């Protein structure tokens, strides 16, 4: 990883520290700054309220020309998060062809928060959950809350 990329990551971390986006905490390791660990609270009013979700953000070597890779380390019942041990997400500005260097990690984190409030059904990576969200909202919320109790407390 080039020095400029490191500088950029440092800078972004600094911005995250000054802005202090609500409802999340960033664990930053100076030794391995390409891997961030984020603790995100389930947003109030969503099915995930009360849960604490661990996320991992990995910066590729080509950062900022390639998007960071975001994955949920805590299992979450969500149409946009893959339901496996990877917990990967790939949508919106996280997609390689839509990522632009001016985008920042803060934006990524905000995107995730907003997706927890309102999943993006059209980009669902788990279509069954997406369908449930669309057609049987009650069942979806029940399941999501169930998972929060089980995994995200």
């Amino acid at each position, binding site marked *: 990883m*080039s020095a*400029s990329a490191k*500088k*950029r990551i440092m*800078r*972004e971390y600094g911005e995250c520290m000054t802005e202090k986006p609500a409802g999340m905490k960033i664990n930053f390791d100076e030794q391995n700054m390409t891997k961030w660990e984020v603790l995100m609270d389930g947003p109030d009013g969503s099915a995930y309220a009360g849960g604490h979700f661990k996320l991992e953000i990995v910066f590729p070597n*080509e950062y*900022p*020309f390639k998007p960071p*890779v975001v994955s949920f380390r805590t299992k979450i019942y969500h149409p946009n998060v893959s339901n496996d041990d990877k917990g*990967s997400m*790939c*949508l*919106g*500005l996280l*997609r*390689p*062809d*839509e990522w*632009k*260097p*001016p*985008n*920042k990690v803060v*934006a990524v984190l*905000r*995107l995730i928060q*907003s*997706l927890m409030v*309102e999943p*993006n*059904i*059209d*980009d*669902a*990576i*788990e*279509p*069954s959950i*997406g*369908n449930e969200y669309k057609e049987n909202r009650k069942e979806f919320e029940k399941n999501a809350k169930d998972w929060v109790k089980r995994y995200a407390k």
Partner: protein
Amino acid sequence: MSAESINIITIDFPDPDHTETIDDSFDRLASNESFEFPVQNIQTLSSKGVERGDDPYGLLYIPALQTDECRDAEKDYVPKNATRLDNLPHDVQYALIAVAPWFSSTCMKEYFATARNEPVKAFIVYQPDPESTATPPETNDKAWAMNDGGSWQYSNQFPTYAVPGASGYLIASQMSNYSGNISTVPHGDSLKQLYPETDYVRLWAKVAADSGTQLPSLWVFLVIVLGLLILIIGATSLCMHVVQRRRRNALRRRVINGEVDLEALGVKRLTVPADYLSELPVFPYLGESDHVEKSMAQASTTADAETSPKGLPLSRRSSAPDAPKSYASAMFAQSTCPICLDDFEPKESQVRELPCRHIFHIDCIDPFLLNNSSLCPICKQSVLPPGYCPSKITNVMVRRERLISRRRAQNAAGHTHSPGNIVARLPGAYDSFRARVGGTTGGRRIFSAPSRTQSRPADIEMSSGTPPVPRAGITAAATTAPEIVAVPQPTQQNGVEECPEPPSDQPQQRREWARQRALALLGNRHGPPGGEEEEQVRSRWRRGLNKIFPGFR
């Protein structure tokens, strides 16, 4: 090498005991008073020891037998006083040709054993049937069986020829005529006047082997087949090379004419050559001046009028008619470098402006353009001039371009059908291919839900430092190449004509669509990033095959 004929003549040569100088010279006797016989219908049993152009010759003699049984049996086939080794000069080793009847395999072994110890150049055998004039059977016939698996042919250092029985008996009887001294041979009286009495008059033979270029028929056949195969492969390879070369040239022409955008199609990831990069304008950042606000206003109102300040011939947008502006106007709203997020220092930071008017720190943008991509990181517009063509158009690029355009034509043709059907019809290979292509560049996605842009929360669009993207690119592209609207410009991110709408009615269809979509997304992330890497992954023989048959899949 088979024998075509054996020519037997009668010769006179001096007795080495009675001459001063021993040489190999001999006199051939006149044909009217001697025995001359060209043997026909010869079967070659073994051609061992015969070199091309080295026809065996020698004095005819009958080799001695070792056992009494064979000697007794021989009497029926060989006249009593036929020429033996004893009837030839003893001290000089003349070249010899042995003659023997093949009446039993055991006695034949004795004949061969004797002949091996003598300077025999060839062995003539004849069949015991005195009436036979036909060509004797071939070497693997049971008439020549020795019950030793044919090893006699290898242990003999001389060739063996079989002649018909009639010829054999004739030769043998003549050998009995020419075995004594000069006065006893036919026409001895007249010969005595010509030659000294001590001279020998004997039969001499020369085998005329054929040219030897003739190979056994099976080998000839194999060689011909092999030759044909090589010829066909060569011709096919040549044809494919020619075709591929024409395709490459055609693609190059289309790239130069601006009909094809290699990078936007995802055919090839281009980079910007250093010498071209150095032509892109570099200037110190001037700060947010009045110009900036003015140009911002302009940019937001009439984006189409945005044009490159110097009417750069290299600019991708064909320029709108008006307004050459100062450099300062170019930096509309950019006060920070989008790559390192540092603010530009007025009058200090050296910035590079791309044809799309986005500016960056030189240190930030140059390595990216040199090594990674030729697209502006912000608007994905190509930095390269419209007719730019990479120096090398490879077969892989040709193949991808053809595949993509073919699929696109299919898609266009199938567009009247339900989009769900399109997705279902696409072969799996196509999905992965497109996924790969999508991953390489700022190409578009295969399956995109058009409503996604609306449903996306507003606050995730990063606006800080992102200037309004000029729309001129699209219109210019449409005017320069109106016939190729199917070729997307990178700015048309959401692939209007290609991305199928999610089928909304049937849940079954919709689920299938979503599954495909998810697979495509995953493919995006795992696919190999570029053409070169993919080439290396291919196995070696596959690459070799491709070298011989370019365009072969």
